[in-house]
């Protein structure tokens, strides 16, 4: 797919100016000025970039955002918002629609060109699948967090987990996909997705990759923090290091809360409940039971390591590849985890010629 821009801009003069400048830079663009008829105009078309003015009727803007990821080639989406509108922008929609950047209104042609220059690389189909799965994971986790576990969202989470597993198993250069995640943004609901991906990368290197293991691991990783939903709202977004002793004690109850929640569903296997219960255990120094290393379920150890790493990325706003090097620099942290799993995690980020040949 070449660079193709969709500009949804109701200001006819501004839209014409930008289109003309883009054409003079040999960039194909399409302009939507009438929001009422946008669906028909862009049906079955793929775009690399979308610049969307929130001045369009609000409902239309939100409908466009919700549909773009799945239907239009996973473009980079730039949302133009005026200062007055900023407080009314639906933040969870921005997150679930993977809006790349919010631009201030009025915007300039230079800003538009800069957006294109910043993201010249177009995504491979595996990268697009990865982004779609990330979006779907974010949506299902958000649904579970807001409405609780139910049979339907458990099935959805299982299916998404299986799809992530298939992608990781089949894609010989999966490390490259992670490496190329230059637009990576550590988002709250994205955390379980990252834990799931890193856990599967580790298990693949350990060759613990039967369908059954990967399936349990995926679901366990995606809902490992489900017990957090039983805690007061203010605790959910707090960094544990900032909690007072009373808050931290409550926080430490989330694995047991998660266990109680998942035990109500017989279709959730015991391996998944063990992951939820033990993902904060660390050789007699963790919680809730401070069990020794030998008593920690191996898949819970994998999720624990991935959880710490994903949390590190979130706290430090780092991309996975750069973050891994920094994370491994903390020897105290590294020594808390199973050496085999640490090695598998490093190997999963190293492009392995042998791996490529095997799967070629």
């Amino acid at each position: 797919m070449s660079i193709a821009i969709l500009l949804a801009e109701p200001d006819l003069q501004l839209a014409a100016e930008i289109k003309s400048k883009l054409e003079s830079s040999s960039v194909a663009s399409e302009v939507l000025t009438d929001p009422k008829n946008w669906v028909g105009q862009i049906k079955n078309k793929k775009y690399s970039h979308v610049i969307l003015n929130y001045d369009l009727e609000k409902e239309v803007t939100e409908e466009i955002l919700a549909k773009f990821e799945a239907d239009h080639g996973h473009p980079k989406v730039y949302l133009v918002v005026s200062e007055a509108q900023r407080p009314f922008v639906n933040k969870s929609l921005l997150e679930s629609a993977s809006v790349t950047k919010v631009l201030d209104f009025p915007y300039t042609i230079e800003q538009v060109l800069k957006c294109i220059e910043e993201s010249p690389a177009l995504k491979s189909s595996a990268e697009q699948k990865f982004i779609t799965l990330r979006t779907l994971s974010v949506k299902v986790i958000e649904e579970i967090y807001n409405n609780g576990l139910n049979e339907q969202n458990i099935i959805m989470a299982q299916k998404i987990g299986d799809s992530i597993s298939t992608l990781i198993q089949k894609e010989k250069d999966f490390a490259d996909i992670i490496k190329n995640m230059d637009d990576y943004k550590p988002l709250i609901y994205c955390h379980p997705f990252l834990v799931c991906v890193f856990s599967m990368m580790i298990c693949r290197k350990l060759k613990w990759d039967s369908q059954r293991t990967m399936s349990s691991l995926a679901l366990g990783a995606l809902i490992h923090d489900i017990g957090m939903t039983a805690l007061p709202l203010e605790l959910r977004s707090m960094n544990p290091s900032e909690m007072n002793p009373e808050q931290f004690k409550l926080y430490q109850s989330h694995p047991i809360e998660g266990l109680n929640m998942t035990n109500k569903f017989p279709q959730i296997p015991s391996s998944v409940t063990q992951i939820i219960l033990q993902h904060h255990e660390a050789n007699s120094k963790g919680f809730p039971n401070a069990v020794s290393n030998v008593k920690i379920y191996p898949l819970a150890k994998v999720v624990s390591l991935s959880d710490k790493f994903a949390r590190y990325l979130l706290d430090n706003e780092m991309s996975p590849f750069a973050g891994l090097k920094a994370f491994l620099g903390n020897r105290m942290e590294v020594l808390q985890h199973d050496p085999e799993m640490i090695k598998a995690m490093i190997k999963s980020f190293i492009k392995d010629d042998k791996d490529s040949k095997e799967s070629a």
Partner: protein
Amino acid sequence: MSKGNLLIVDDEPMIVKNLKITLEEYASEIFIAGNGLEALEIIKNQTIHCVICDINMPKMDGVQVIKALRDQQNDVPFIFYTGHGNKELMLEAAKYGAFDFLDKPNLDGLEEVVSKGLEAGFKKRDSQSSEDFESEYLKLLKELEKQ
């Protein structure tokens, strides 16, 4: 290379027979115990690298077996399997350190789990020295830097 010795603990002869046939190629030798007491006796006299154990058994259930072994400082990997409805017992058993869980009747992945259990049982007896880990770890870090 030896694959490791497996102990199957179950009071249902048909299940034992099927498990033995399925897992024959994955273990050097398979021992059978019909209940927990027999299991403890076998472990006392043989080198066992992995145990696959039903949770509900007469005389001594799976929880009591793993508890007794852990009390003896025996860390042999334990794989539990049981039917739906025994989650509480499974959780109780898990407190003593379970290597994995299989939910009857779905025994998908049984062979992989047992292979890994046996491998882990071997490693416990021949664990990598910290010097070896350090040297391999540093080598991997160098490779990562090159990426």
